[in-house]
């Protein structure tokens, strides 16, 4: 054996050279490996940056080649020839001699300048001595003479310099004669080459870009869990080098350009970083760790897919509409309309009106058996109702019905009209009214589901009326249609100003919409006090008062958990009930198995998906659950889950958040209000809504007009107030009606401020009626009004006969009482900017007037004249109001 042989050698004689060599060799190799691992293997970004540089260079180079080929070859040739000629002229004797002479003169000038400077310095020094001598009285005259001598020197050198400069100027005129030709030609050549040169410059810069870590440091971004200021460091751009390069729009990751440059314009990654929105581990530089998915302890891994929009909520939690984040806006809409805040406390949703109707006077409206069936399963009567299913047993539903009927009997609601007033309408005419005046904006009845489809939610915003004939009491319905606020003072259902006859027709039509299914008769004991008491308990327990006003339950709190930090909940804190476990690497979070069981991934996302899919999914024989089943679609679940992801207390410090100033608050209040009253069902507002337009696809102009963001700048505050109080007809050709919402002055003021806020205007009190017109613009205005044929679409006063409604534009006689004078000017200047898609043509395209006879074709003057004239039409009409408007 090796070791036994070795043991025989005396210790002093043993050689360890071999071991030393082996181990130090291993140490060397190990160290070399560690260095390689450190500088190369663990820094894949070096490779990425090299690869990116090549990719970008290749793209820029090919663009440069294209630019070179696209030059005007003939002109290029001519210019190059001329340039060569001009350059060869530089060899001529006249030029070379002049340059030579100039160089000699410049040398002389240098000498003369120096002497002049020195003379000045000597003079200053002598002057100092002279001044000093004045104090002592010694050598005064002598020194004075010296100063004078130096001053004479200064003079003579200065003359010399002037002389030389004159000579140089003479030579320059010769020299520049030659040189100017060259410079001019070179400039022209550069002009032709500019495109190619720009690419060349970019190419140079791309190739010179250093291989380096690119990081953004946010020193005071957020707080640690211990409330200390924590910096955030993002190095994402080290690998994602092409995020801002439009040439990389189709490049493979990690070089691809960011898909939303307009969003980045507001959140510049160069000083905002990437992780504030995308999450992930900013300082890490390898894929798995940077995205935070390979690091199981990293609490905020990258947000993928729609989840990334959750980050908007960190800074914009107060806003419900974000222009550049449609999924975020949709999620907030879902949250608001589904009423999550009725049971859960959610930051920013503490002061929202109840989404359901009050349940205090139900006997006037429905029969107990209908109510019983509804409580048991609302989706059975109306699959698209917002009311979720509580899965009550028959006994529970009966108890709740008993309680509601009891408080209904005690209600003092009375129908104003005698019973039977509703009778006598024609259902056919009712159907026509129902389908034209705008009821379908909110209510679905029968087969017409265009609005629902356009809305794209699984629920309707107002009850579907397909079976209403079997639900509602016609006397109540008549009363309701005539004045919805009589039954429910807080309702969002507006009055459509139906005449008694119209209302009778609509009632007749609605009563034909019956539930034709065969329903099992129910036998309810509604007067049993024990049942009523049990109903009381159940209603409190399940938090019905979160959505509905119920007498005796005005002060009920929220029945479920606070969601304000739900996004930080860990999987360990969640109970998955009896669901099967889906492996973590499964592609889906939730899966319904053929045997009827459900598999859920054991993650936060999996749990939330299952909960929103079926709120009772995790219920077991011991753990009962109260959350009702909503029936959200896959898309809605993902959006709501995205929103829940954002529910954390980890938010950036205020400096990074958008200031929720007065204007923002006013805008947000207006949004909430317009959503509450479903204004967006008809009108397109801030790029959302306008669902009723689905019924007017053939001719959108016959649908409700959109409300552009400039609405506040457009209409007079007084007019808007009056209009919202009592809508008047602006577009007589429309059959769809602007309903009367019976808004309070405070609510109207909120809407005013909302519109004004969107237009970045303040609410000021103005008397539009006393706007003075400049008479010298009136006549030219009139002339232009005819020249530009405004009346081919617009009219003043009565609707011209024989015109298709689709070709009509608003009555200009209303302009002075409705529009703001500044807006008319802006509108005439560029209508499509204020209202994209408008049919109003742009007359002054590019600031030029088509008609050159008035004001010498000065567009601004013409616009002023037109606006003045249009304003004057209404002013005259106001003095003698046109009838029929």
């Amino acid at each position, binding site marked *: 054996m090796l070791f036994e042989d070795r043991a025989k050698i005396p*210790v002093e004689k043993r050689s360890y050279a071999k071991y*030393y060599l082996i181990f130090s060799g291993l140490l060397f190799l*190990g160290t070399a490996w560690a260095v390689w691992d450190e500088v190369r293997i663990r820094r894949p970004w070096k490779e990425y940056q090299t690869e990116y540089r090549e990719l970008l260079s290749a793209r820029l180079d090919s663009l440069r080649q294209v630019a070179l080929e696209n030059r005007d070859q003939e002109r290029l040739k001519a210019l190059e020839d001329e340039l060569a000629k001009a350059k060869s002229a530089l060899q001529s004797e006249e030029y070379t001699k002049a340059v030579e002479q100039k160089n000699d003169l410049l040398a002389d000038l240098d000498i003369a300048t120096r002497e002049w400077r020195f003379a000045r310095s000597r003079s200053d020094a002598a002057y100092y001595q002279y001044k000093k001598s004045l104090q002592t009285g010694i050598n005064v005259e002598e020194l004075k003479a010296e100063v004078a001598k130096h001053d004479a020197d200064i003079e003579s050198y200065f003359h010399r310099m002037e002389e030389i400069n004159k000579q140089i100027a003479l030579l320059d005129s010769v020299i520049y004669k030659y040189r100017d030709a060259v410079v001019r030609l070179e400039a022209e050549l550069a002009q032709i080459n500019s495109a190619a040169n720009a690419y060349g410059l970019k190419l140079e810069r791309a190739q010179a870009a250093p291989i380096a870590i690119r990081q953004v440091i946010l020193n005071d971004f957020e707080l640690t*869990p211990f409330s200390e200021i924590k910096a955030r460091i993002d190095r994402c751009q080290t690998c994602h080098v092409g995020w801002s390069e439009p040439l990389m729009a189709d490049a493979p990751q990690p070089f691809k350009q960011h898909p939303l440059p307009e969003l980045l314009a507001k959140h510049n990654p160069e000083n905002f970083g990437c992780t504030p929105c995308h999450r992930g581990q900013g300082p890490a530089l390898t894929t798995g760790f940077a995205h935070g998915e390979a690091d199981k302890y990293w609490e905020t891994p990258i947000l993928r897919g729609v989840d990334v929009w959750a980050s908007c909520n960190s800074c914009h939690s107060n806003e419900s509409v974000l222009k550049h984040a449609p999924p975020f806006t949709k999620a907030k809409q879902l949250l608001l309309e589904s009423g999550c805040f009725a049971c859960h406390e959610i930051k920013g949703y503490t002061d929202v009106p109840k989404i359901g109707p009050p349940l205090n006077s139900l006997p006037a409206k429905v029969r107990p058996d209908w109510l019983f069936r509804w409580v048991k399963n609302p989706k059975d009567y109306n699959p698209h109702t917002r009311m979720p299913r509580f899965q009550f047993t028959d006994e529970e539903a009966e108890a709740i019905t008993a309680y509601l009927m009891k408080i209904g009997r005690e209600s003092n609601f009375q129908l104003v009209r005698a019973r039977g007033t509703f009778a006598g309408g024609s259902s056919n005419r009712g159907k026509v009214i129902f389908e034209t005046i705008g009821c379908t904006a909110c209510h679905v009845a029968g087969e017409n589901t265009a609005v629902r489809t356009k809305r794209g939610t699984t629920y309707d915003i107002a009850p579907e009326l397909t079976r209403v004939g079997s639900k509602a009491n016609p006397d109540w319905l008549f009363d309701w249609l005539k004045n919805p606020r009589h039954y429910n003072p807080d309702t969002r259902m507006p009055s459509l100003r139906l005449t008694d006859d119209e209302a009778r027709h609509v009632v007749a039509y609605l009563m034909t919409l019956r539930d034709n299914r065969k329903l099992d008769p129910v036998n309810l004991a509604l007067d049993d006090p024990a049942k009523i008491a049990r109903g009381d308990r159940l209603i409190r327990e399940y938090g019905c008062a979160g959505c509905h006003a119920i007498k005796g339950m005005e002060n009920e709190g929220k029945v479920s958990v606070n969601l304000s930090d739900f996004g930080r909940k860990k999987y360990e804190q969640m109970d998955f009930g009896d669901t099967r476990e889906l492996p973590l690497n499964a592609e889906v979070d939730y899966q319904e198995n053929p045997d009827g069981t459900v598999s859920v991934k054991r993650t936060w996302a999996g749990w939330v998906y299952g909960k929103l899919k079926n709120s009772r999914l995790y219920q077991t024989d011991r753990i009962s659950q109260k959350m009702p089943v909503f029936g959200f679609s896959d898309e809605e679940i993902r959006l709501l889950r995205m929103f829940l992801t954002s529910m954390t207390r980890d938010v950036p410090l205020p400096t990074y958040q958008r200031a929720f100033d007065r204007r923002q608050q006013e805008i947000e209040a207006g949004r909430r209000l317009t959503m509450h009253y479903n204004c967006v069902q008809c009108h397109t507002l801030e790029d959302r809504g306008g669902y009723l337009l689905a019924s007017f696809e053939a001719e959108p102009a016959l649908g409700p007009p959109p409300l552009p963001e400039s609405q506040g700048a457009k209409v007079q505050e007084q007019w808007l107030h009056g209009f919202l109080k009592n809508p008047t007809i602006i577009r007589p050709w429309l059959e769809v009606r602007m309903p009367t919402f019976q808004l309070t002055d405070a609510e109207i003021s909120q809407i005013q401020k909302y519109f004004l806020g969107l237009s970045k205007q303040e609410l000021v009190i103005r008397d539009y009626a006393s706007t003075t017109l400049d008479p010298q613009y009136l006549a030219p205005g009139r002339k232009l009004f005819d020249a530009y044929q405004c009346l081919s679409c617009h009219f003043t006063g009565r609707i011209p006969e024989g015109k298709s409604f689709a070709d009509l534009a608003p009555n200009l006689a209303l302009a002075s009482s409705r529009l703001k004078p500044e807006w008319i000017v802006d509108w005439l200047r560029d209508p499509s900017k204020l209202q994209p898609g408008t049919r109003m043509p742009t007359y002054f395209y590019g600031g030029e007037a088509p008609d050159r006879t008035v004001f010498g074709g000065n567009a601004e003057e013409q616009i002023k004249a037109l606006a003045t004239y249009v304003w004057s039409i209404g002013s005259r009409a106001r003095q003698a109001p046109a009838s029929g408007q």
Partner: protein
Amino acid sequence: MQHFIEILTKPDNIPITLLLVSCIFFTWLYWVKAKKNDSQEMPDEAKMDDKVQVWPYLVRVEFIATIAVMALLVVWSVFLDAPLEEPANRALTPNPSKAPWYFLGLQEMLVYFDPWIAGVVLPTLIIVGLMAIPYVDINPKGNGYYTYKERKFAVLTFCFGFLILWVSLIVLGTFMRGPGWNFFFPWEKWDPHYVAVLTNVDLSEYFGIPTRLPDNTINPVAFVFGAACVFGFYAIGPIYWYLKRNDEIMQKLGLLRYAIVSFLFLTMMGLVIKIILRLAPLMFGINPVKYVWVTPWFNI
């Protein structure tokens, strides 16, 4: 088993896996050498009478060993990164929350005793006991060579105290204590929702003596019973002295040394007995023992 391998190969657990392997190896090495020495007249080490200078003959070997260890550590550092866990958050603490690995034995003791005993008394006794060893060890044999025969008590006590009580408790705490400090067998997954049976009763209750009276004060009978058990256990020391007082070894040791050794030894054994009382009944479907002696100040 998949989970167990994951736990075993976690970067911060690898040293403990190595500790286990090296403990077994060195114990085995000791036994082989000690057995050989014990079977011959003169220990192998004594035969090596040839001596050389430390410098350079020892130092050069140590130098090479240093290089070898450095090479190993460098390669190790390439493969295994220092494990960092989530940022500290007082609202969300990790589960299980484990002490540094070398303290896991102490943390494990908290399962069997109240914090005052497991966290203060026993660690103090461990340190005091270790300091006392040179003063109570009167056996001059075994210096510089491997032997078992000549130092049976010392060797067995060490093996028991270090290998069983210290190392295996660390191993238990590292590999088998999961969320909620619940015990998991290697083939079980660490389930954060695991529900353990909690049916511990005090020893006196086996004999129908409730520990507390209806007004929640301690039952004097149970108190006396518990005290009797504990003092009875420690009485083994004096009784053994009385029986063996004439033995040569006892004479040499003297009463004071004997008292110290027997107290420390019995305390060590008491720890094990308590663990057995807690764990063994589970195998027979009996309620495990919670405390032997409950007092208003501490529980044993």
